[in-house]
């Protein structure tokens, strides 16, 4: 049976105790795994200092795992600033390239 639920991921909370590359990559892996059980993943970027490493380790990993069409369909991102959107586009395209 296909999952139908939405999982809400507060990135600020997830990163509070985890800022090394290793920890960031683990959040990315966990996010990818959540999509086995949930149809969509809603990621909240409120209060996030979005570094290139966080962008790549979490969002880049999701984009690489899903491909762009499925990423657009299943990943919902909220409270993104214009600057953060620009960085994410670079990271996603690079991962997909």
């Amino acid at each position: 049976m296909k999952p139908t639920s939405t999982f809400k991921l507060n990135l600020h909370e997830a990163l509070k105790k985890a800022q090394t590359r290793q920890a960031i990559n683990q959040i990315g892996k966990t996010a990818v795994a959540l999509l086995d059980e949930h149809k969509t993943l809603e990621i909240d970027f409120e209060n996030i200092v979005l570094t290139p490493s966080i962008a790549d380790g979490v969002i880049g990993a999701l984009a690489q795992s899903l491909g762009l069409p499925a990423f657009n369909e299943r990943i919902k991102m909220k409270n993104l600033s214009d600057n953060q959107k620009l960085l994410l586009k670079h990271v996603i395209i690079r991962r997909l390239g």
Partner: protein
Amino acid sequence: MYEFSYITIEKTLIMETTQYEDIEHWIHQLENLATGTAICPDFLRPFHLVTLALFIKKLGWTELCLPEELSAYAGSMGLFDVIDMAPPSNMKKSSARSGSCELRPFIPETQQQKEYYIDDIASNLTTMMYPHMPSYHQNIESLKICLTEIIGNSFDHAEQKNGLPGLACAQRWPKGNLAQIAVVDSGIGIRKSLHLNEDLHTSLNSMNSCELASQYGITSKPNAGHSGYGLALIKDLMQQNSGTYILLSGNELYYASGNDQMQSYLLDISWKGTLLIFEWRIDQHLDVGAVYNNWPHPEGYDETDFNF
């Protein structure tokens, strides 16, 4: 006891930016410490302090004698705490502005502390550079992103054998409208790190590794949370601001200042590990958005491909 001799240089009113020769000269002086022939500049910047602290820590020295005035300044920056030495008994009270400068060691004892340290250091140094200056929110955001990224890099690449994987130091000189942050580690260095990525071997054979590492998208570990944007972001921000970016690793140094001064150098002395210095005009823009917009736009994609 390892002692600096002291030379007096007439101070100018204009705040000059750091040049690559300053770095090379200073690394020589560190090497000269052991023979008692080191010459200490009369004006210390963050890059002097981080390298001095890490150098002493690596060698396990227990005594250091600086000229009296510099000793007070270095003490106020926390140098003696970082190198586990008692400050000189005759140390004068520093005239340095409280809160405008600090030396921050990366010395977490547990993984949990390590996770907290990155944000803690980045936040504190950013606040020191722009204290009570909310109108500079763009600069504050940009600086915090840079520091979080680069301190994370240091944690990943540094060796921790000496209990001091890395150091950061920040100083602002409001009257000179200049600020400098220096981050140093004693890790494997840029060349060895980039060599882990086989795709870079050809470039490494013909290029200065610090110049290569400063380019957009260059990383030792592609697709592993190492996007290769961190150093490029700092370099581009400094150029946008007409500031200065210097990256030293081994005997390779890359210098970029403004939009037209970029040069690679091979020094006649080496630093084991990596030293990053960035220096900028406090009142000029640091705008990550403008940098992201100027990065290459990959072909085959446009705005409509994304749902955000």
